[in-house]
Each structure stands twice: as C-alpha cells, then as structure tokens.
C-alpha cells in the first residue's frame, strides 16, 4: 500500500444517466465540491461525503472532498496513479476509517448503512477462489451478501458473457474472464451503491461496453456507482455530463 509521495490531481466526473438534463455546477475552493444547481427540493442523496479526507502517516492522500451521489447517478473518479482513487473507494466502503469528515449512506452513518447491504466493492483483486468454479464463487457471494431479486447465478454469468464457463475452475479463466465473474457478482448482490475500482482494466472493447451497460442498468434501477479510472478508457454511456475537478492542490 505505498503511495507515490508526489500527489497527483484527481478529478471527479459526474454522469447523470437517468436525468441527463440536470444542472451540475461546481465550486472549487480549498476542496472540490459537486452539487446539484437549481434544485430546490433536493432528494436525500444515496451517498453524501462531507469534508472527507484520508491521510497515511500524516501525508494527505486525498481530500477534503465534498460530494453527493443520488440514486441513478454514476460518478467517474479520474486521476493518475497515486492520486488516491483506490484509497477513496476503500474509505467509502468502510474498509478504512476516514481521516476526517463524514460519509452518510441514505442519511445514515456509514457503519450502520453497511449493515443494511448498501455497498458492493470491486477491488483490484477479483476476490475469487481459483480452485472453485464461477458458480461456486457466486454461491459464496450470495451467502455472504444476499441475492438481488429476479436474477440467478446462471443468468448473471450469461449476462457477462460467460455462458458455458459455469463449471470451469476460475484458475483456468483469463484475467478478463475473472473480471467478468466479479462483475456477475455485482449483478447478484443487492447493493444499491457500487464502488468499482478500475473496472475497465484487463477488459477488451466488448468488456468495456459490458461494464458501461451494467452501470447503465444499475443507474436505471435506482442504484448508483462510483467508478475510478486512470483515464485510459473512455466512459461512453449515454452522453454524460463530464465535470473534471481537481482535488486539493
């Protein structure tokens, strides 16, 4: 977990998928802030971070950041290596305690919200057992996280293009196919908020389209997602409003 000592800027892109005509305004001062402009009766955001920061050994990794994420939104966090994207997602998932500020999920404190099945994290590691088949891995995820309605492991694997690989040990799959199994896990678990760390890595063009389709579907059914990318892949779903913002200088 070593970080580049020289911190690089991180930008946040907000893509509103379901309601693309919403206004987005930004105010960048000592911190970056995303807020909806001209919205008088703002619905309760799914995720709300205020003054969120994290430091490792007193070296600030990111923040303070303020942002809100409503149901139906996908937030793209762009930044170079070492800009703290992964750390941000780990803080938002509750794996790391924030150094400062607060995170609220559906208006609740993070730790409580996590107990109510709100967050699913896709990290750098796929989180799969190489000795088990995709189906067995997904069964484990369902046991530990729960199951979304109207979907089965077979359906999920089919929708990520892994039909016919249900019984093949994961160790025999390619890196991209493993990623697809992790994506199938996201489809199965009933989390409203997806935290995806570099979901486009290891994927071919078709796979990138798949991620975008899944994000679109997640937004349409009232979920939300935070996606990190170091900028090499284009975020193509719909015609998203992009808002590059710099984190603390």
């Amino acid at each position, binding site marked *: 977990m070593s970080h580049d000592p020289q911190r690089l800027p991180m930008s946040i892109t907000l893509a509103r998928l379901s309601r693309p005509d919403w206004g987005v305004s930004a105010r960048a001062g000592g911190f970056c802030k995303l807020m909806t402009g001209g919205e008088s009766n703002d619905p309760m955001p799914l995720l709300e971070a205020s003054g969120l920061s994290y430091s490792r050994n007193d070296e600030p990794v990111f923040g303070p950041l303020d942002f809100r994420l409503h149901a139906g939104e996908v937030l793209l966090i762009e930044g170079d290596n070492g800009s703290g994207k992964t750390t941000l997602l780990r803080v938002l998932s509750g*794996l790391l305690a924030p150094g400062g500020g607060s995170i609220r999920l559906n208006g609740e404190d993070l730790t409580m919200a996590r107990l109510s099945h709100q967050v699913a994290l896709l990290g750098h590691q*796929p989180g799969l057992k190489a*000795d088990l088949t995709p189906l067995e891995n997904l069964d*484990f995820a369902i046991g530990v996280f729960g199951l979304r309605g109207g979907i089965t492991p077979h359906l999920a694997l089919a929708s990520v293009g892994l039909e016919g690989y249900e019984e093949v040990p994961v160790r025999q799959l390619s890196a991209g196919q493993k990623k697809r199994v992790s994506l199938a896990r996201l489809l199965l678990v009933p989390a409203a908020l997806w935290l995806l760390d570099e979901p486009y890595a290891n994927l071919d063009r078709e796979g990138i389209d798949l991620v975008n389709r899944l994000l679109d579907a997640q937004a349409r059914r009232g979920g939300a997602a935070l996606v990190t990318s170091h900028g090499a892949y284009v975020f193509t779903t719909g015609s998203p409003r992009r808002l590059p913002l710099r984190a603390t200088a």
Partner: protein
Amino acid sequence: MRYGTNASACAAVVRRDLLLTWRRRGDALNPALFAIIVVVLFPLALGPEPNQLARISAGIVFVAILLAGLLALDTLFRGDHEDGSLEQLVLSPHPLPLLLGSKIAVHWLTTGLPLILVAPILAEMLHLPRSTLPALLAALALATPLLSLFGAVCVALTVGMRRSGMLLALLVLPLYVPVLIFAAGACNAAQSGLPFLAPLLWLGAALALALVLAPMACAAALRISIS
C-alpha cells in the same frame, strides 16, 4: 431481494472453505505428516529405550502437535488475503467475528482434527501407556481448538506480511504456553496415576472464553492489519 441471515452467511463460509480443502485434499494431510516426522526425530535423538520415551511421550506429542498447528496457521488467511476475498468477507453486512469464527472452525476441522486422529499413532510410537490415551485425547480435543483460536488472532495481525513465519511463532508461542502446560500437565498427571480432571476443566473454561472472545479479537486485529 434476499439478504440472507447470519446463519446462512456462516454456512456459506463453512461450505466454501470445506470445498477448498477438498479440492486441495493432498495439502490437508501435511500437518499430520509433519507431526509424525517431528515425533520420529525424538527416538532417533534420545535412543529407543521404551521406558525413557514413555516418560516424556505426552510432552513430545503435545509439542509436535503444537508445532504442526503453528505451521498450519499460515494458511488461515493467506489465500483469502492474496486473492481479495478477505476484503469481501470484511465488507459483508454480517458480523465479522461470526464469519471469522466459522473460518476458524473449519480450519480446526481440517488441521486440528487430523492431528487428534493421528495422536494415538504418535502415542504408540513413543510407548505412551494405553491407560493415559483417554486423557491425552481429551486434552487434545480441548487444546487444539484453543491453539486455532489464539493462533487466528496472531495470524490476523500478520496478515499483510510476505514472510511472517518466525514472527508468527514469536507472537503465538507465549499464548500457547498456558495451553501446553495444562494439556501436557493433565497427561502427566494421568500417567502417574494422579487426578487429572482439574487441568482439563481449566482448559475447558479457557476454551469457552476463547470461543467468544477470540473471534472478536481476530476481527479487530484483521481490521487493523488490512487498513
């Protein structure tokens, strides 16, 4: 939408870990094999004189099983940490101590239980009097889960390290000292015809306490070392 219960989450952990052990069932024999090898070394070093071996046999069996358990500890979280599934486990909405408790239980089933099963062979190799065998097995049945539980707390602290073998031994052995004393003490008492129930009861009390506290401590330690 089905969120699952704590019980179903634990069942999923148990099922997966048992399945994983089954897929690599060759590795599961290693701790027992190691214990046998350690025990073989003692007669070679001390000489084959049965009376002498019988006198120290219980102690040797316990030390061999303790060392085998120590070596087996490494596998408790290493794989899960390397492939990222430990993170998923921590993120689960179900209580982490419960899930870790299930993991530790499976770990004991797959490493501790084989050691108990191999113990009569070890005892026979060292000419332990047959009458002492029940005490030995009872002490092992109480001591090996304790070793797994204490060990899990220490493994959780070293989970991110690449080479943790020696350090793990240093962290774990002071915790094992009381277990070893009472377990071997019970056998020695039985061997010399003294009452041996008291140390076994102490072990049982420690096990009851550790069953509750160790998974919680393990969860707290894990949260520190994955941060």
